């Protein structure tokens, strides 16, 4: 009896997620300007539904909350299926695959920033610059030294972490406005340096960076009916999942707890014997490592990088992803990336107003929901510890 119920639950979850998945596909496909109104109507309708039918909404919520692993598995399966299904449904699927990959890259950068800004409360307005350090490192190694592209990715991450260590070592004790100013200056300095140093291409940037090549198999080659970026799609998907897992473990471990302690009350943390300087540096370098890795993937996939890709406007976009989604919350960061990267791509009508709308959106979100759309919840250590005691779940079973 119970087993049958479980099966029904899985079926329900799978069907709901598949429905959403196909709705998104349709959203990608339709080209007319009415899509804006239709989407708004759909979102409004859904919100209205949740308001009117509170009981059903609650039961769906409970269903999703109690079967986390199923939800995630179905989601990953759907994402794995995307390159196979999308050419059938969407005519211009190559473009959308590229957008999805870019969203993945932004999720990685934003998760890196989330460790710094969300968990530790350290403002970093130079995230695009560290992303650029990764991109340039990978580009230079692959282009000038002919390193295999796959090896340049972790090296680029380490390079970004090292650069951040060198830059932050003298100034990591500053906080608040001052740290914002320092990182802003770092961003300007690195962008100006990239623009003026001829060795790394100057304003022209780096061209023809070789793509990832695994045992003679070029990642940009077209296989059968699939589109151009399929290999990269799977590669980035895997890395994003890896980043999410690492971030999740980071958040739930005592390291994440320590970082949040420093964010909330540094003097108290120091008083309890937390070596806050060490942890701050750790959080800064870890975050910059993620940014560097993401930058390397971008450089290898697109094959062309130049200084305008890594300027303050980009840093601001990444900061907005973290702020609007919800600080110190992985799900929030992902939602923020989807809102700020995918949705503007669809509404080409508003391209001209896009940056202005970013600005207004940041102000409105900060005024109405200062903790982001999905604010961080308290860590549920107690529940998981109790669960472990009862033999139901491991210590990291749920968040």
């Amino acid at each position, binding site marked *: 009896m119970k087993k049958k119920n479980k099966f029904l639950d899985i079926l329900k979850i799978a069907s709901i997620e598949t429905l959403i998945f196909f709705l998104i596909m349709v959203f990608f496909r339709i080209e007319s300007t009415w899509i804006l109104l239709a989407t708004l109507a759909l979102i409004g309708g859904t919100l209205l539904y949740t308001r009117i039918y509170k009981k059903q909404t609650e039961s769906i919520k409970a269903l999703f909350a109690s079967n986390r692993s199923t939800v995630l598995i179905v989601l990953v399966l759907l994402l794995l299926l995307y390159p196979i299904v999308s050419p059938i449904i969407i005519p211009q699927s190559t473009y959308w695959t590229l957008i999805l990959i870019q969203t993945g890259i932004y999720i990685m950068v934003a998760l890196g920033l989330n460790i710094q*800004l969300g968990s530790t*409360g350290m*403002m970093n307005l130079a995230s695009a610059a560290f992303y650029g350090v990764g991109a340039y490192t990978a580009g230079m190694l692959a282009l000038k030294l002919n390193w295999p592209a796959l090896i340049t990715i972790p090296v680029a991450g380490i390079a970004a972490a090292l650069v951040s260590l060198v830059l932050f070592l*003298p*100034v990591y004790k*500053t*906080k*608040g*406005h*001052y740290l*914002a*100013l*320092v990182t*802003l*200056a770092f961003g*300007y*300095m690195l962008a*100006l*340096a990239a*623009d*003026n140093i001829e060795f790394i291409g100057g304003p022209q940037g780096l061209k023809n960076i070789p793509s990832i090549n695994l045992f003679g198999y070029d990642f940009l080659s077209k296989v059968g009916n699939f589109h151009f970026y399929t290999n990269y799609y799977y590669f980035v998907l895997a890395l994003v999942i890896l980043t999410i897992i690492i971030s999740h473990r980071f958040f739930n471990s005592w390291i994440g707890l320590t970082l949040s302690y420093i964010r909330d009350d540094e*003097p*108290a943390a120091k008083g309890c014997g937390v070596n806050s300087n060490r942890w701050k540096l750790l959080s800064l370098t870890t975050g910059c490592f993620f940014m560097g890795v993401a930058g390397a993937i971008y450089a290898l996939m697109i094959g062309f990088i130049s200084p305008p890709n890594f300027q*303050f406007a980009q840093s*601001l976009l990444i*900061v*907005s992803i973290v*702020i609007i989604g919800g600080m110190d919350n992985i799900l929030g960061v992902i939602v923020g990336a989807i809102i700020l990267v995918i949705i503007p791509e669809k509404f080409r009508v508003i391209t*001209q*107003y896009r*940056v*202005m709308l*970013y*600005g*207004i*959106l*940041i*102000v409105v979100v*900060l*005024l109405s929901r*200062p903790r982001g759309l999905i604010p961080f919840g308290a860590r549920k250590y107690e529940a998981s510890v109790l669960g472990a005691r009862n033999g139901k779940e491991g210590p990291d079973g749920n968040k």
Partner: protein
Amino acid sequence: MTSTSVVFQILFNGLMLGIQYSLIAVGFTLFFGVLDVIHFAHGDVFMIGAFSSMVLITLFRLQTASGVSYIILLILIFILSMVLVGGFGVLFERIAVKPVSKGSPVMSLLATLGLGIAIREAVRIFFPRGSESKRFPEILSKLFSGKEAIKLGGTIFRFENLLILIIGVIAIFLLGLYVNKTKMGLAIRATAQNGEVAEMMGVNKNRIIDITFFIGSALAALAGIMNGIYYNSIIFDMGAIAGVIGFSAAVVGGLGNIYGAIAGGFLFAFVESFSAAFIPRGSEFMDVIAFAVVILFLIFKPSGILGEKVYERV
């Protein structure tokens, strides 16, 4: 040119830039005093100052006027654009600065950054051909049309630049008088020292905040007009870097201290103009060098030139 005249020229350029940076930095430091926020959109308020004065110049047909009416119109334009931008400043403060000022520094910083972007983009989109750089009319040169520029040992000082410098110095002098000698100034200083106690002593804090934002924004507008006259061209994103520089100058001088902000503004300007002149390819790297100086200050003297040392209270 002899080397002394080169130095004179650089010093003069530094003074010209410094007076503009100081006027912006004073705003940052005033706002930080009364609200404990960094108003990152202040650079864009400076940009609005330049644009609104240009609009007023065409609106009043300044170019066709002559004689006494020209001077009266000119003064009117200066005052009107300062008042207008001061009003804008108060509006921005009400919309996006004061409501977030109670949150963490990160929040207020982002909100004002977002506000700045919105302002900048609004000008780009809604101003006619806003994304191009605009030629700022040479409004002051008409006053000195018949006269030769002053030459001092091979260095040329243009009259209109000297006039800008004098106007800037007068503005700072008046600000100093206002803050130090009037009752309102006393209230501003009291609020900056301790807002709650000031309120208990009968200071209307909200009014003081409005007044402070009005004054700070009006001074930024003056800096914007000066910038337009000095460079002869304005563009919608001129405020982005000006805001960062103004903030840096305020920090270098010591946040919350008006004279510190002025000193910081001049220091930043001199570092920039000297590095542009003496370091090879300096004009490309001058911002980098100036920011490096700011970072050095933050490392070795985080309280700034004139700031007090702040101890963290638990």
